[in-house]
């Protein structure tokens, strides 16, 4: 069977299009590349969706934590503490069993027990907490002069936030936020290794990589393939976020532009 045929059969296997049965023996390199790459669809789906939705909650949480009102500050602090202080792995398990028991009383929670929605909610809350903390740090380091200048121009409330506070916060937080994005994508590999079932063997990249490693008992092929895909993905993220960073900093003189320095922020 040619490699092109394999790609046609398994390229979209992770979302249920193509051949139903996974290869069982005599795995070719092409099959491993195709299936693991097909699994990346899930990683990208979870990462992009969680980032896109988590961004807004993160802004809200950061503003809440920086607020002087206690009833806004306390819930935000607790939210950040709970999601940053416990392992994502345990959060997945807990959420799955929570949805499972909710499903028994309310059938409408049926969709929540499957990974595409349930795990996405956990990732959304998790990344909101991590980015919220980043944004909060950035909010606190907005130069005092910027806000005083806004006041001097007669800006207040929403217009000051929209035109001064928020853009500056994003600009300051962006390098750290890029890291957060990278590690969020890495964290998506946990989904199918916690409680969420991979229905009809539609899993993510790591799910297929470990499938091959288990079947062939040879970890030296599938995991490097996975690593290759993830390094590629990381480069893409760095590129995209770098472009946004450039736009956020476009008004600054060249010398003062914040360089994108990537600090290792590791697992969660």
């Amino acid at each position, binding site marked *: 069977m040619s490699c092109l045929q394999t790609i046609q059969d398994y390229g979209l296997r992770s979302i249920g299009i193509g051949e139903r049965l996974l290869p069982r*023996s005599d795995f070719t390199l092409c099959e491993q590349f195709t299936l693991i790459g097909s699994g990346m669809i899930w990683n990208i789906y979870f990462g992009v969706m969680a980032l896109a939705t988590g961004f807004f909650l993160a802004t809200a949480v950061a503003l809440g934590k920086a607020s002087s009102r206690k009833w806004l500050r306390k819930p935000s602090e607790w939210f950040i503490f709970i999601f940053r202080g416990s392992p994502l792995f*345990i959060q997945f398990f807990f959420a799955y069993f929570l949805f499972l028991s909710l499903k028994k009383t309310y059938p409408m929670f049926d969709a929540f027990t499957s990974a595409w929605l349930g795990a996405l909610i956990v990732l959304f809350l998790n990344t909101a907490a991590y980015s919220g903390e980043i944004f909060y740090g950035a909010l606190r380091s907005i130069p005092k002069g910027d806000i005083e200048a806004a006041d001097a121009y007669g800006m207040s409330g929403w217009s000051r936030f929209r035109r001064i506070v928020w853009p500056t916060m994003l600009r300051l937080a962006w390098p750290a936020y890029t890291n957060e994005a990278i590690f969020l994508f890495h964290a998506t590999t946990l989904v199918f*290794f916690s409680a969420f079932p991979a229905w009809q063997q539609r899993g993510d990249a*790591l799910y297929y990589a470990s499938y091959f490693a288990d079947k062939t008992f040879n970890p030296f092929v599938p995991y490097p393939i996975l690593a290759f895909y993830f390094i590629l993905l990381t480069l893409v993220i760095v590129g995209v976020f770098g472009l946004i960073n450039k736009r956020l900093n476009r008004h600054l003189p060249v010398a003062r532009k914040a360089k994108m320095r*990537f600090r290792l922020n590791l697992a969660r």
Partner: protein
Amino acid sequence: MFSYCADPDTLGTFRWFSCYLTNGVHWSFYLSFIKVLALLAVTAPVALAFGFAGAMAARSHVPPLGWLGKGYIAIVRGVPDIAFFLFFVIALDQGFEWMRHQVLCPDWTDPIRQGNDFLVCPQAKLPLGTAPEWVHETYGFFLAVITFSIVFGAFAANVLFGGMRAVPLAQLETAEAYGMTRRQTFWRILVPQMWVYALPGLSNLWMVLIKATPLLFLLGVEDIVYWARELGGTKTSKFTAYPHGDWRIWYFLFLLIFYLGMTRVSEIGLERLMRRLSHGQATAAGELLRKETTA
């Protein structure tokens, strides 16, 4: 555990829980918490040592050693850590068996990889097929410790490397001016001063390490996640004296609270440590401490 547990009247009373929570399997559950703490206690210093060696290698002026150190650090970037965990557990196991195979059975002619099998001679199996259960468990735990140490060693190497570079250059130049050799400068000037710069990174790492412990479950160790799933699942009276419905959510809630507690305690402890290490250092925190004590 308690004598009243044999009495059927306790059923349905609150005392039922005291019986349920002290039965045999629950002791295994509690023991697995000690397993997690033991993993932390063993891994943290070993990973720190790995990290120190890695950072020293990365600083080295001998090209291959420098590449090795930098490569070790760089390898953890860009790839999910869970992939490393899954990879190293099999790779280390096969590596050990392969080495034993080379030593113990030199006249074995069959290839080791036959299709989808990894076959070494029976004497080289690790642990031996005849070994008792606890050897298997200990070996699994041992593999987990090495895996954690390798992965977190690379993280620590990155942090320590950064800490070493953060020490003001003037300090090193002064040492050189006093006629110290490179080795002396490293051990007497650089190492004592780098900790305060590395500590924020290291405390972050410690938090990450705590939060990575549930991954033990993926490495095949019977840890707290394993037992929480086991014990929480629905039990019928056919198999146990303590039937109950699906309680996994409560068990995992307990684990969640356990980890939150661990995080909080570590936060407080690390804050104190930072305070102590900042003492007398030429940093903003050290300056603050000086003002506090002299004022």
